[in-house]
């Protein structure tokens, strides 16, 4: 395992009420790559993402981000954007208003950056419609916008293509490739093998809380 990896999971296990949720997960992930996680419902993808964010504490093992151990040297990663479940956006606010309310918590980005994030996911930042008028796909796009707006080093997206139409999926793919080029470490979970194969540099297959397969998806020009 590379000592210099941006994100490391070392023998990570989680047991909840005698049930093994994650079992001996080892990861070594770097910036500038997209990592895909595939598996059936209940295979442990979301729990793994929660553990990597510091939301659940491992029963055994550890998570190291940028050299600091999660849960010991820091409670949560210093720079992370996630989409794990639908954020509870306010129905009476516009997309921009909702993101601004969240962005104010850290106050590290201005209105222009929020508008840019909304534009990047294919929405109109000047759209005056309230969130309640948004379609499911638009809600998903706004969820992705909140994950990327603060330009975090680590981006974790659980089923980001849910509710997106084919154009939306294509736009998301382009967005992720742009973020990858900006040296972000991107983790995505999906059921769709083709989609993950296309997007990911490395793919992890999960089953019953374990990584049962791991392979590189990118082929060189020679190959």
């Amino acid at each position, binding site marked *: 395992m590379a000592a210099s990896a941006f994100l490391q999971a070392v023998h990570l296990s989680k047991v909840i009420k005698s049930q093994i949720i994650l079992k001996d997960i080892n990861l070594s992930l770097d910036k500038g790559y997209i990592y895909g996680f595939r598996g059936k419902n209940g295979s442990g993808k979301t729990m793994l993402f*929660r553990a990597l*964010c510091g939301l659940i504490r491992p029963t055994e093992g550890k998570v190291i981000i940028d050299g600091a151990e999660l849960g010991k040297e*820091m*409670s*949560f990663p210093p720079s992370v954007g*996630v989409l*794990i*479940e639908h954020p509870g956006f306010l129905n009476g*606010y516009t997309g921009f208003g909702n993101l601004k*309310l969240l962005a104010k918590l850290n106050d590290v980005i201005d209105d222009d950056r929020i508008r840019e994030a909304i534009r990047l996911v294919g929405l109109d930042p000047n759209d005056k419609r309230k969130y309640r008028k948004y379609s499911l796909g638009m809600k998903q796009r706004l969820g992705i916008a909140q994950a990327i707006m603060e330009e975090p080093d680590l981006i974790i997206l659980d089923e980001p293509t849910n509710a997106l139409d084919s154009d939306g999926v294509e736009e998301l793919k382009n967005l992720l490739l742009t973020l990858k080029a900006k040296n972000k470490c991107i983790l995505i979970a999906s059921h769709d093998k083709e989609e993950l194969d296309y997007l990911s540099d490395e793919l992890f297959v999960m089953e019953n809380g374990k990584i049962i397969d791991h392979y590189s998806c990118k082929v060189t020009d020679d190959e």
Partner: protein
Amino acid sequence: MSRLFFRDVIYSVSYGKIKYLAFFAIAACLTIMKSVEIKPFSANSVDVMFLMLQDNGTIRRAADYQVPFYWEFIQFFPLILIGDFLHQDESSNRTYLLLRCRSKIRYMIAKIGWMTWQSGWLFILLFFLIYVLSSLILGDFSLGSSSYFQQQIMPMMEAKASPASLFVHMFIGFVVTTMVLSALQLLCIQFISPIATLFIMICLCSLSTFSSSKWLPAIHSMILKRNFFDTAHHLTLGFSVAYSLLVYVLACVFAIYAFVKKDIL
């Protein structure tokens, strides 16, 4: 932490505005009904507040028991509003807020701050609403001793108290009781479902309508069980405030401890 608190304030008002409006609309209707009912007796707003916010008093025989609907409505509804927001925020926003504020303790302190603020402003607005509406209907904006107070309320008292004292006891009683019950709600939702939590709160409040034990958390908003209506139980304002604050602090500390220790699933 203050950013998280202000975000909670903005979010809760926007999220629950229809429910807040419903609460104040019902309270306004009850105020109008009570005011019209006692208009012929030269009453003022303190009398209306007393009639609206009073409980069923100390029960000496089971046959005397009457459900104090007004008191239960005024005590339950704010708890439901507070619990509803706490549950909504826990289930939908917690992940996103925690990863931005990066501290479970800061997150919880902001929630506790919001609960305290909520317990205060809801009752400030409620008392103000009752004062304005009843004063307009009764044509008397004073808070002094009315004929109704002297003839109807004072004879019920075992120890004399002024209308101002009655007002202060009712207002502080409801605020501290709501604070305590909210803190207990916050503690309970760390372990059990919001529905089960609400059921526990209803049981806690209902217990106080049967019993006169001053150790029950919901009894401190019950004006008829205070020492000037019922000297036997020594329920003074000082005791209510001190006891409620103690329970509030303990519940908040345990809630923070439980939240820090638990996984965010």
